[in-house]
């Protein structure tokens, strides 16, 4: 199987939780330097799809290949920013310790973090403009700052694929803008996939859009048909195209 050029290849993947299908017949190819936004309602399987790519959820049927290998082998090349809100803010851990966790795959068991690990963690913190908060307990930071720490943790691994789960949730609009500008810079070095329930925020910045509601609607482009959106959101959705960039608006 030669799929080296493709970052992720998903073929006819189904996922069931207790025999209820969460993902149905998913086919998706993510290429190098893709900046893909996946939008869809909550509970539509967005996080599950990311977890399939990470090998955290095993599909009941279908094939998943990441950099030509199984997700378990290739996930060392993946940076993952989980849905923020799932953290215990009381947890006694500093920003520095959290970002170093991104380097776990690079140091063996029984070993301390190496100088390389520390350099990569420092770089990641600098990139996210969080160096000065290095020794702060994570729970003592604002929501936006915590968010940057978790992105820094993902970047510390020098990933070739970055997966972000609802990255815009919990941060205000100005920081969101900066955040998307940062992703613009990162996309020259890695493929980026972000999932969100918020169409308007995502659609302005990403290069390609897919819709997910148990089934995936994707045309390897930023084009979405009215049928795609209706199937995803189960309500009439109007597409307004002013040339480039596309604006996709929902009518309620």
């Amino acid at each position: 199987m030669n799929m080296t050029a493709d970052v992720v290849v998903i073929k006819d993947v189904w996922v069931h939780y207790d025999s209820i299908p969460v993902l149905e017949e998913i086919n998706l190819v993510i290429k190098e330097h893709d900046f893909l936004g996946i939008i869809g309602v909550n509970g539509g399987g967005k996080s599950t799809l990311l977890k399939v790519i990470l090998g955290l959820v095993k599909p009941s049927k279908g094939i998943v290949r990441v950099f030509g290998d199984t997700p378990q082998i290739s996930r060392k090349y993946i940076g993952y920013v989980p849905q923020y809100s799932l953290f215990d803010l009381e947890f006694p851990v500093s920003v520095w310790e959290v970002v170093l966790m991104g380097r776990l795959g690079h140091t063996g068991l029984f070993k301390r973090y190496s100088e390389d690990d520390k350099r990569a963690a420092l770089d990641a913190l600098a990139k996210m403009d969080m160096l000065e908060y290095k020794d702060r307990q994570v729970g003592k930071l604002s929501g936006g700052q915590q968010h940057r720490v978790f992105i820094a943790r993902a970047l510390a691994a020098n990933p070739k694929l970055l997966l972000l789960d609802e990255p815009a949730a919990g941060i205000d609009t100005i920081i969101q803008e900066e955040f998307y500008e940062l992703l613009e810079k990162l996309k020259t070095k890695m493929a980026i996939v972000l999932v969100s329930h918020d169409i308007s925020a995502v659609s302005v910045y990403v290069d390609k859009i897919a819709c997910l509601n148990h089934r995936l609607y994707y045309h390897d482009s930023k084009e979405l048909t009215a049928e795609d959106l209706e199937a995803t959101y189960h309500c009439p959705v109007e597409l307004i195209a002013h040339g480039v960039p596309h604006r996709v608006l929902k009518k309620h």
Partner: protein
Amino acid sequence: MMELLQYEFIRNAIMAGILASISCGIIGVYVVVKRIVFISGGIAHASFGGIGLGYYLGINPILGVLPFSIASALSMGWVSKRSRLPEDTAIGILWAMGMSIGIILVSLTPGYAPDLMTYLFGNILTVPFSDIVLMLVLDAIIILVVYSFYKEFLALCFDEEFATVRGVHAERLYLVMLCLIALTIVVLIRVVGIILVIALLTIPAAMSRQFTSNLKKMMLLSILFGAVFSSGGIWLSYLFDVPSGATIVLVMSAVYLLYSLVKGISS
């Protein structure tokens, strides 16, 4: 208090108290920050099956507890992760099962079971030297394992899913952690007994959390708290001739409550 130190049983008791503080100081921090107090209580109580096994086989009950607590830790960890039952339900079942096995085995043992209360509620004033040696060995194992897996344990406690993505075998490591809890319980049985173990695993760690946000400092601080409170408890129990295990636990909880109260009023 100084003149008490001329008695060998008091010196042994203080030594046992310090050795217990080391293991519960380190492992208790994990129990508290990972919020696995319930499963730890389950392992401790199920270990009573090992006491029964020891009596039944006619060996030192502590040597019966060692394999039994490891087995309970592994089965609880495995069942809570893999079974379709809710985690707390599975733990509750195994908790009671272990104790029941212990009760049946004790009743099947001919004759009277001496010192049974000692294993349930602890009696630090009667710790034999051989048990102190065992505690020392278990402490050394616990320190060695925690030193080797420190960064993996931290990641496991903070964000198990992310640790998995970064190539940590989270489930295996979790089982290792539960086994360390089992070893800690063996160390603590002589001091406070199976029923009260959970106090030593939680109170010093919870107190140390009030003073620092660094895991290593938390461990050192809870070892210190454990040593001070257990020594204080031993002294008071000798002074008033009351059970040592319960006295140690009451000293710890009283200080913690007072501290929380004072902190609550001042803020």
